[in-house]
């Protein structure tokens, strides 16, 4: 795979994560279906392959906490932990996207020097 394709794929993966989390932020965590969740679980593997280890770690932790939600009513501290993971993942994805863009542009500009 060329470097350009690698970069494009990384942006696509980050995009999928952001879209899934945006959906959760609108509909609430209870709206998360098994199907949606399995998509997020699959992405942790992908993120590891791409060396996005911090993001992968938090996504894994988010998925593990979701599994504990079977308990009803959901304990307050679990709700809080899940929210924190969501907000962390959003911030990390945002920083990664920004870094990737700036590094790609730097490469483009160096080629043009």
């Amino acid at each position, binding site marked *: 795979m060329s470097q350009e394709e690698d970069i494009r794929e990384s942006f696509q993966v980050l995009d999928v994560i952001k879209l899934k989390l945006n959906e959760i932020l*609108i509909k609430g965590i209870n709206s998360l279906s098994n199907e949606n969740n399995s998509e997020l679980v699959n992405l942790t593997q992908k993120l590891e392959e791409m060396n996005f280890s911090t993001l992968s770690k938090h996504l894994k932790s988010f998925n593990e906490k979701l599994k504990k939600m079977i308990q009803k009513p959901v304990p307050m501290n679990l709700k809080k932990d*899940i929210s924190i993971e969501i*907000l962390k993942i959003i911030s990390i994805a945002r920083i990664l996207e920004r870094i990737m*863009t700036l590094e790609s542009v730097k490469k483009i*500009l160096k080629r043009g020097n």
Partner: protein
Amino acid sequence: MNVQLEKVAVQIKDYTESLAFNGLNFVSNDNIKKIEFFLHNASQLEAYRLATSLRYLHIELKRFLKNRSIFNIERYVFFLSNCWLLSRAFVSEKDLRDKNPDIFNSLMGTQLNPKIRSKFILKVVGIEKIHLEGTIVGFVFYFLSLFGKTRNKILKWNLMLPYKTGVTPESLLHHDLPNSDPSSVVNTILSKYIEADNLPYVEKEDIIYLEKNPKSKIYIDEESSEDTHVSIKKLDKYYLNAKEIYQKNFKDYEVTPFDLPASILDYLYVKDVYVIDFQKEGIEGDRTPTFVFELTHREDYPLVIRIPEKQGNLKLIEEFKKLKGRRTSIDGIFCKIIPENGQLSLYPLSIINNNQISYPNLKKIARDNRALLKSTYKIK
């Protein structure tokens, strides 16, 4: 103050976390009143960055309740996340202030504190239209400064009004130009040079205010013709090769968690431009779709123009679609640099052809009879 900021930060942190868990279906008018309370407290405690993020979060939540079609999920998530990050930092305010005072001050932000400056000579070289339905309409005017300490800098003037049904940004061009002598309408500054005295100016942000100081004087240079070659020549300062862009904007740039996904870095004047092709990225509903225009230009680094499909950009998109396949090159495009999606992306502010500047985002302005009568009979 220490205890209070920590206390407010804990409340905001809990509030944003509960929003993240429950989603927006539980949001009500009573519920978002809490943000007004937080906003008031954050402003009093001079936590300006937090106050700004809370203000925008409040706007988006109100838009969600009022009219979901104008609610913008990306803006909502950005400001929700900013509020959470800032409040999280301030929860252990004392530690942060003692151990990292620079970071603490930067997270607190500063109030824009304009200073009065005596003489400016200015020419508009770019316009950005703002049309946030349900919130504000207006323009950001980009002036090239031609005199004094700010010479060759781009200075911004924001002219905004709260949104009202039927009010378009273009209608603001018929409003009186504040402090102008002779009395003129805003539209005049699009073609004439202006000289200004006693203008409030924020150096850090390069913002000027034509309207805030009653002692300001704006003189329209009636003699200045529409031939703007002087100011166009000066735009050459913004004509950069790949190495210059890298040195000026990217070499020492540090990413922060508060960066917008598409933050402006600088301005660029691109010459001999052809619009080769365009495509639409993104699906309606998921995110704001964006038109991406591929360009060739005099230098050899790749450039694209990215224009989000928002109400304020529709005319701009139409104009750039028309430029595709044009046989002769466009002399120049003056743009903001907004790196995004791994590309060196631009947002166009004006087009230059035959020594004339045009603003592709402006709809044709119908004759304004009120302004005509005023100028004929010199009624103030």
